[in-house]
């Protein structure tokens, strides 16, 4: 299981423009990251909260639906969050 995770991380990280990849569990605790500890810690909590909120908004609008992916585009960067129910993974 963890070999597949490592491979996926490496694959994503090698995409042009990817600054970092971060895997956060449902409690907002980072479990894997290619970014520095400081950046990881500041992103992890924020991302987890935002993903939770987005997920709950989706279910409020339609109880039968569910969040699968969240993309946040700012002037400077793009963050993509893949929400597989358990572990949001952030790609910067």
């Amino acid at each position: 299981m963890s070999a597949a995770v490592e491979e996926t991380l490496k694959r994503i990280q090698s995409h042009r423009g990817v600054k970092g990849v971060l895997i956060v569990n449902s409690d907002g605790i980072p479990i894997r990251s290619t970014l520095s500890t400081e950046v990881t810690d500041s992103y992890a909590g924020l991302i987890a909260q935002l993903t939770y909120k987005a997920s709950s908004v989706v279910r409020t609008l339609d109880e039968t639906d569910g969040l699968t992916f969240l993309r946040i585009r700012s002037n400077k960067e793009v963050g993509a969050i893949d929400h597989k129910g358990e572990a949001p993974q952030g790609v910067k």
Partner: protein
Amino acid sequence: MSDVEETLERIKTKPGVIGYVICNAEGTVLRRFPTMTPEQAESYLVAMRRLAAKAGGVVRDMNPRDNLEYLRIRCKKQEVVVARDEEFLVIVIQRWTPAEQA
């Protein structure tokens, strides 16, 4: 104003688009997709306004000089794209299909 109408027409006729809501900074619905009811528009508006504000906060927490451009929320059944600026909030709801495998 005709630029706006042209853009709206373009969005309206794009395949997969099943709704849109445009509102001003005060949260008043300015335009909505013809088949959307005012209640549907209002519920999307309320939900996305809050979420976009939160996302904007996250972006600025990470970098005070940065700003949210847009937010893409992909669900199992549909996708909602939210673009925000000081004056308006634009919400587009569309169906999505998985990208073809390379």
